[in-house]
């Protein structure tokens, strides 16, 4: 349990920097991709900002538990294990969620694809961290 929490927190810190750093750069250099977020569908009063920034730790801790439970199934070098882990998570968890989101919410395909790729990148980075520090 301690190992799960430790690796989860380490991955959380790394994901926090990479995810929000990447998002900041994305907003700065590709602003047109974010115009659709000016929509009441997305929280606008700042009341949930803390939850937004905690996401990196929530996904890291959840993936850390998943990794610890099923890591024996991922074979090969740490890069291959991290990549496979990321793809498995994306296919099992992200794809169905993105599918139902696109089908039921007034959001664009670009938006959903960007969320899928964002989640995939997060899961691969977390997988690489787990494969390295909790093989």
């Amino acid at each position, binding site marked *: 349990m301690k190992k799960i929490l430790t690796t989860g927190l380490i991955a959380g810190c790394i994901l926090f920097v990479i995810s929000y750093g990447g*998002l900041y750069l994305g*907003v700065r250099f590709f602003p047109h991709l*974010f115009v659709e977020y*000016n929509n*009441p569908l*997305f*929280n606008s009063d700042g009341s949930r900002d803390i939850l937004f920034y905690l996401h990196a730790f929530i996904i890291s801790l959840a993936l850390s538990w998943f990794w610890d439970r099923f890591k024996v199934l991922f074979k090969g070098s740490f890069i291959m294990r991290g990549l496979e882990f990321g793809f498995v998570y994306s296919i099992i968890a992200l794809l169905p969620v993105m599918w139902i989101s696109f089908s039921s919410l007034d959001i664009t395909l670009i938006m959903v694809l960007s969320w899928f790729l964002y989640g995939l990148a997060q899961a691969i980075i977390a997988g690489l961290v787990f494969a390295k520090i909790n093989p």
Partner: protein
Amino acid sequence: MQYKNILPVAILFIVITCFAMHKKLNNNTRSKTWVVSQNSSLSVNGSTNINKFSCVIPAYDHTDTITISKKDEGYILTGDIALSISSFDCHNSGMTRQLQKTLNEKQFPLLHIRFLSLNQLPEPIAKPEFITGLVAIEIAGVAKHFEIKYQISQDDQKVIHLLGSRDLNFSDFNLTPPQKLGGMIKTKDQLTVAFNLNMKSL
């Protein structure tokens, strides 16, 4: 006997005085009335850290009047233009809904512009003339007074074109500009309200 002679004189004096006062009052409040036509428009322009937006009410769907009266202290305007927040079009459905939500459309469905005064009487000429005046703008139930520079002109069909614009802040009306994705996308506090009123003199 003497009192009998004074009474008609006194009545005559009162009648003449009342007539003179009425005439003076009438001269001082000589007024003109303009009817705001339906092809008048209003726009709200603003920006975020990623884009600019321009939201318009392309056609005014009421027929209102503005009355201008000469008073000792200047030119007083009387008239209220009520614009429906739901008529805004930001050329992007999400941004339109966002503006309506930010302006608290459910609770305050109308934006009011009340014309209060002008510094001079506009001349009915084709050449645009610049005048200033006071208006009260009411958004989300909060009214603020602003001085506005108008451009006024009259075309061949005797339609008076009144153009005015003014920079405002969301915060002037106790509104919070929206922010998204943990504050990475922020709407700037300042926005410009511009209106183009087409009016005919009654």
